[in-house]
């Protein structure tokens, strides 16, 4: 008892104790928060592997499973862990009775019937993983077509974004001119512009060009730079010492050569991080593909999955299987590039 009091005293009175207590509480909050974050992911994965029958009857379980059964008089009956007089047996439930009671029998001796309250017994399950849900889901929709479209939009757009944003960020970080500062402010202010105010005329423009229902409206604008990525790259370019430019200038390099051979190689971490951000944006984007793509063969995964849900919403196992496939690339990318990620975020502005 006194030991308990001693340690309590240590926790409350000493500075070390305070720190220990504080770290303990912090870890506890973080751990329970993590559980709340991870359970939906677990539910998604487990549901994608479940038998549809389980989703109807035993949906809240996080494990893909099936009731264990035993053959009694030729019929499969569910098995329970039954406690009788403090002893545990594996008995089968053969008949439901009124008032929550049931008739249980030992599968090896089905002639002796025990009447017990069903809720007091524990039903037994076995793992039942349906990998087949994945091929079934992929074949139920033009998955590869959607994936191809998504990859085209994502990567061609990324090339356009990197190309245009590098040029523009270079212009805004290395040159002095009367209107450049004003233009930069204008660029920044577009971050706060709600896209709806320009969306309708842009849609009409693409319609007149005959581009609606092609991937072009999702790709072409990327070649004209965007405020977010220009800002990010410019912040990074500013940290590259000017002496490097000057040395190259003395060697007779023109501004384009300086960008290509001095700035861009130095800025690789920033380029990779805006590339990753663009991947996440384009891969997950739903609003613009929904508006610009009308026919099935042009859809991206996001639109395809949403429509698949609208048609087959009861097939939860298939929809979760496609959902898992859709979140795998971003998650993998995140795990492989975590360091770049956090660096990129540090640059994304706060300090700007």
């Amino acid at each position, binding site marked *: 008892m006194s030991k308990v009091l001693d340690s309590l005293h240590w926790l409350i009175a000493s500075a070390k104790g305070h720190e220990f207590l504080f770290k303990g509480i912090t870890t506890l909050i973080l751990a329970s928060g993590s559980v709340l974050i991870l359970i939906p992911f677990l*539910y998604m994965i487990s549901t994608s592997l479940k038998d549809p029958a389980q989703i109807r009857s035993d949906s809240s379980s996080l494990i893909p499973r099936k009731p264990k059964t035993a053959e009694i008089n030729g019929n499969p009956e569910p098995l329970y862990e039954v406690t009788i007089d403090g002893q545990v047996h594996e008995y089968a439930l053969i008949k439901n009775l009124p008032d929550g009671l049931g008739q249980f029998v030992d599968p090896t001796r089905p002639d002796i019937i025990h009447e017990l309250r069903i809720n007091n017994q524990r039903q037994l399950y076995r793992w039942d993983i349906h990998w087949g849900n994945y091929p079934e889901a992929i074949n139920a929709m033009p998955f590869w077509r959607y994936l191809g479209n998504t990859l085209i939009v994502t990567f061609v757009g990324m090339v356009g974004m990197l190309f*245009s944003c590098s040029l523009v960020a270079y212009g805004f970080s290395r*040159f002095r001119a009367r209107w450049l500062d004003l233009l930069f402010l204008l660029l920044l202010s*577009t971050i706060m512009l*709600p896209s*709806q105010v320009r969306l309708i*005329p842009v849609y009409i423009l693409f319609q007149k060009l005959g581009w609606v229902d092609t991937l072009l409206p999702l790709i072409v604008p990327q070649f004209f730079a965007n405020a977010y990525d220009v800002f990010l790259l410019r912040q990074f370019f500013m940290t590259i010492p000017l002496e490097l430019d000057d040395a190259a200038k003395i060697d007779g390099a023109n501004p384009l050569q300086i960008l290509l051979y001095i700035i861009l190689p130095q800025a690789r971490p920033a380029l990779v991080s805006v590339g990753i951000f663009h991947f996440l944006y384009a891969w997950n984007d739903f609003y613009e593909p929904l508006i610009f793509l009308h026919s099935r063969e042009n859809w991206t995964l996001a639109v395809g999955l949403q429509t698949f849900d609208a048609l087959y919403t009861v097939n939860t196992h298939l929809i979760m299987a496609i959902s898992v496939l859709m979140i795998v690339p971003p998650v993998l990318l995140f795990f492989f590039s975590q360091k770049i990620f956090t660096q990129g975020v540090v640059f994304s502005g*706060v300090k700007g």
Partner: protein
Amino acid sequence: MSFSSLPKMSLARREALAGYAFVVPWIIGFLIFTIGPMLASLYFSFTRYNIIDPPQWVGLANYERAFSGIWDAIRTGDSRQFGDPLFWKALQVTIYFASIALPLNLAVSFLLAVLLNQKVRGINLWRTIFFLPSIVTGVAVTLLWVRILNPRVGILNPFLKDVIGIQNPPGWLADPDWAVPALVIMSLWSVGSSMIIYLAGLQGVPTDLYDAAKVDGANAWQRFWNITFPMMTPVLFYNLVLGMIATFQYFTQVYVATSSSIAGLGSPQHSTLFYNIYLYQNAFRYFDMGYASTLAWILFIIVLSLTALIFRSSDAWVYYEGHLRGRI
């Protein structure tokens, strides 16, 4: 492009020209995809336009349609007096969501960032986990949450019933009173993106400030309240402005959650008819581009005024290190 072939220009002139040349892609994009369309949509907002026939000038008719009946509705307290009750419903839903989700998101992500800035074991693992949901936002995650929240087959209600002991858990997205709170829960799950911005800000707070405060005998709470919090107000400000704008553009989650239900977009009973959903309906379901442009411009003016309001108020509560330095 050869710059040395322009010998007669002064160096400064040449530098300026090169600067402009490099930002040309953005200038062209700005003209074609931003300022041009903005002016065009302002024009369309005074027309009747269905894309097929040329736009027809109707003056202020679209604005009248949105705002008519407002005095009668206020006087009688009857929302049916509005010329376009759905416009007001959409505003109300959006503001209701914003008033719960924004403060909650700001507070939760800030507190998480403070915790994730502590030196505890496994900190990188915790950071990864909390950031994970914001990487996978969109359709897949919304479809997941629609199922988690489903009163019949979901896992949230069995949890509330069996573990917490709530006898009649709400129907969430199926219940007009609980649909918006359900969306708030979904948004709270993905606070990671604003959390990571706070975290970056926290790591930028100079440690000598804390050391100096420790020497002066400030305890942990005083250090938090007098150093961490003021230093973080610019980030709070940034997250508030961008969060407010994002709320007015809230779309994917609502579309995915409600478009496949029988009652359709914004269901049940228009309880999730967010402003952007209503705008989308008018533009791309009814092809009423004139009225949709009017809605877009009203949205723009609301967002602009709220942003200006937040900027105005920022003098009172946002602390910029540079200002203080300037005074000293």
